[in-house]
């Protein structure tokens, strides 16, 4: 039986080389990850899909140790600069301590399973892991 995979979010492209995809304004180049009505920077309405670099560096992070009920802690929330495009993601496959997570650390995109639903579909999440 083959399992259907669904991405956690629309902007995660699965397959052999998982990567993030942004909506890029064809007029000014601003990039967005959500469904767009128009460009927040220049108000134009034409967008094209662009692949985002899968490697980047941690520009900011926090280690969340207190969250809403049911959200597992601790986790590392970060902003990753992927070749000039900022991405929000967790830092994964890394101890969630200030000794292990550092500003400017090099990371790469990694995916993991979020489990199956009742139809057998498997959701795939993503994060960024340290480049050893």
């Amino acid at each position, binding site marked *: 039986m083959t399992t259907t995979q669904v991405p956690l979010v629309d902007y995660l492209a699965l397959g052999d080389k998982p990567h993030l995809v942004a909506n890029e304004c064809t007029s000014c180049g601003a990039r967005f990850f*959500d469904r767009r009505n128009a460009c927040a920077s220049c108000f134009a309405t034409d967008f094209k899909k662009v692949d985002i670099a899968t490697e980047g560096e941690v520009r900011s992070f926090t*280690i969340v140790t207190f969250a*809403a009920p049911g959200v597992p802690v601790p986790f590392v929330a970060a902003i990753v600069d992927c070749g000039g495009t900022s991405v929000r993601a967790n830092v994964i496959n890394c101890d969630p301590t200030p000794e292990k997570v550092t*500003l400017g650390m090099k990371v790469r995109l990694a995916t993991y399973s979020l489990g199956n639903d009742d139809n057998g579909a498997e959701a795939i999440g993503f994060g960024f892991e340290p480049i050893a």
Partner: protein
Amino acid sequence: MASDDIYILGIYMTKFGKYPDKDTVDLAAEAVMAALADGGVTMKDMGILAAGCLMGQGGIGQQIQKQVGQTGIPVYNVSNACATGATALRTAIMAIKAGECDMGLAVGVEKLAGVGLLGASSAPKGSGKEWKASGRYGSVANTDGLIGTANMPGTFAQVGMEYGHKYGGATFELFAKISEKNHAHSTLNPLAAYNKRMTLDEIMNDIMIAYPNTRPMCSANCDGAAAAVVVSGKKLKTLSLEQQRRAIKVSASVLTSDPYQEACQVLPDVNTLTRIAAKQAYEQAGVSPSDLNLVELHDCFATAELVHYDNLMLCEEGGAVDFFNSGATWRDGKTPVNVSGGLESKGHPIAATGIANIWEVCHHLRGEAGPRQIEGAKVGLAHVIGLGSACGVHILEKSAL
């Protein structure tokens, strides 16, 4: 005084804390009636009411009127995240500037004691029956905790850490020292929700909420209200000398939202709109940051206070760490910041905050701040940030009389 200037005629904040037996209308009514009494006027003199209660139900302005005076004036119920109070004040000021009335009232109130973590959403319910995409990102599950965090302590932690990445020196200990300062300041403020001095060790070893923010480095959820009566310069001239002497000039009133920047939809940008608001405010008021005798800025988290030293141009660009380490922002320093104790100890009843910080500045400019008086204070600045984002900056000046 110029006729088209705007003045704070009366202003009041309730003690911040826990009020199990009072509702938002009770707290707002206390603030409104005391602000009117402070200004020597009544509801009959008011031409507009602007009111905010972010977490409450709609229509707070009319609910307040029904307790303190229904005169038929226009009511604007405003909502602008943590900048709600400043937005209410600015709304009343705009009505006077537009010539629609010569006196107005702004009030903000919130009941938050025991509310807990703000901005957090609960985890998906158990194992999903079906992974189904929804929302603007087509997400199949709640992404908080899976794709970074949207909770407030975590968001503002990243704001501070980003500053550290850019300029260096922003360590856990540095942020904790900022919190140490504000808790020390709060011991002189009887209206603060918490008046306890805390040592650096106590702050750093308290419960970690979102590194590097421990619990005392986060704003304190509490109940409270604040209200202000504003008046035109023209009208003020017709009032008593005592009213004129205590009136505080609003030299600048600015509200901005966040202009587009790369990354601003990934991590909220609280910097650009604050910088723009500050620049506009200094220009409007004709004062420079070095003229300020005190500043109340939006330290919703210790990590936020650091970046706003820079955003409000209290220091050189990139120089916030050195500026803090110089002692400049302690109450005996060059530019005292958050002598009220700030949101970390005074408390942060959201919609009240943007008027309560104006109250604090007015209190000093009037020379009525008692043991925590900043001697000879003539000019002060009050700043708030509502995430999403909205920024309010007001510059206030002592009466020349």
